[in-house]
């Protein structure tokens, strides 16, 4: 499944994140054993990703979102136009996610929240709490980059 939309249309309204996340999640979950549960969880992940994109993107261009299945995991590939500043932001996020002690880092942030960090925490939480993996790919010479988010197995979620 793939979706393509323009930055201009998407970033016009905050509510688009929520609507798109729910719509795409439901679509992708149609063939799952429990589509409702799968979609609720997927929507949570997609929404968080879209919210970060909403706040960090170049003023123009296209956003491509591709869903793939790898075994029992869903992998999301999101490609977006970026400014240099955005690029630094995403690189930093991926760097933090891939540090060895992400969990304690995340906890420390909750205990002592710093100003202006909330946006990135949304993305980092996906890795710290839900064990998603986040990687980045930057094709040389382009003002676009791709984020890859591999989601955990939905079946294992929600257990105590």
């Amino acid at each position, binding site marked *: 499944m793939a979706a393509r939309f323009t930055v201009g249309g998407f970033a016009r309204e905050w509510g688009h994140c929520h609507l798109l996340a729910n719509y795409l999640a439901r679509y992708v979950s149609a063939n799952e054993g429990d589509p409702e549960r799968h979609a609720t969880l997927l929507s949570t992940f997609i929404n*968080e990703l879209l919210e970060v994109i909403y706040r960090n993107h170049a003023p123009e261009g296209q956003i491509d979102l591709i869903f793939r299945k790898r075994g029992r995991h869903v992998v999301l590939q999101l490609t977006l136009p970026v400014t240099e500043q955005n690029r630094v932001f995403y690189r930093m996020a991926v760097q933090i996610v891939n540090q060895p002690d992400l969990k304690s880092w995340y906890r420390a942030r909750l205990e002592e929240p710093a100003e202006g960090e909330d946006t990135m925490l949304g993305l980092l939480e996906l890795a710290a709490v839900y064990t998603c993996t986040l990687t980045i790919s930057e094709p040389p010479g382009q003002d676009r980059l791709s984020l890859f988010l591999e989601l955990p197995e939905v079946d294992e979620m929600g257990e105590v």
Partner: protein
Amino acid sequence: MPVALNMRLTGNEEQEVTLTGTLRPFVAEEMASVRSSLEQAARSARGTLCVNLKRLKYMNNVAFLELNRFVRWVAHARPDLRIKFVLSSVIPWAIRKFQVIAELYPAVTIEVYDKALYPTQPVLEDDEFINVLRMQEKLIWNHEQDILVQHGLRPGLRVADICCGLGCFDIFIQRDFRPEYLVGVDHSRPLLRYARQVVSDYGLENIEYQYGDAAALLLADNSFDFVACRLSLQIFHQPEKILHELVRICRPGGRIYITNEMLSCMVGYPNEEVIQQGYKSFLQVSRQGGVDLDMGPKGRFLLQGAGLEDIKISQINVSNTNSDPNDLARVVELWIRVAWQFGAAAGADPSLHADVEKGLRAHMETILSDRGYAVWPIIAASGRKPFRTS
């Protein structure tokens, strides 16, 4: 941001604030009213403040961080106060998220309310019980099919089957009534796994199974024409709460259909006295476990109490003459074990079980004898949701 906020004082030592719906704000400032309500509640609360999130379907990280800030604020402003986040296992993202907060702050706990609420659940997931359900379903369907028509089921409807168990009923419904949409909801993963396996083995389509809690369904208001809840209201401590949900998801003019057992009228001849004594003890055991296997005759009362109209009642009689007596005897034999497990889970007096066993063995004998007659009665009741509620 479609979030509903509800504050309720539930007692001297426990106050509750409920958030339902969707909480996905753009910036923390949009959480101001939620924050101030929470803080107000925390200021006046004593003992424990419960933050009920069991029907909060979506929440983004902006909202979560605000809740985290609220908890930090409480830790400073009200160090004596405890906070309990009440979650449901049905909301798949919630537990992990709040576990982190619970680990960070000693005053915070999380409660997954639906884990604690249904102590008999493990019995229902036992292999033995799965066999009971499957056999029962096979026995009942032949008799229930026509009754369903009398209660308003016809092709092309949107049907919900709440507490669907193994989903056998849904497969029959799909085959014989071709609903427009059919969803089965149950709170047991093993049973649902079985249900899904059957659906995929037979290549069936158009049946959706959901993991959910009948007491807090995530299905939309007014969205089904026919809502069934079979042999299940009887297992809940507060059937009215479940019924309220069934009515909520039914559209005005649609019907709610329930079936329940009537163990006190389980009859057979010969052996009539031993049989009756056996089921009397069975009833006692089940009541100790919070289950009312004599709820059948209360169906009319319950449906009327829920504000339904045009109430219809039918009796389904599975007997050793209208069904395969071997199947029926096998089901009764399995009940003996179910009663045993039930009794053990509920801490019932073990001597009761001797009575159950004696009575049900006598019942089996009657069922299998070619001169005996034995009946398993089930009461089906349905009512229509009015177009206007007063």
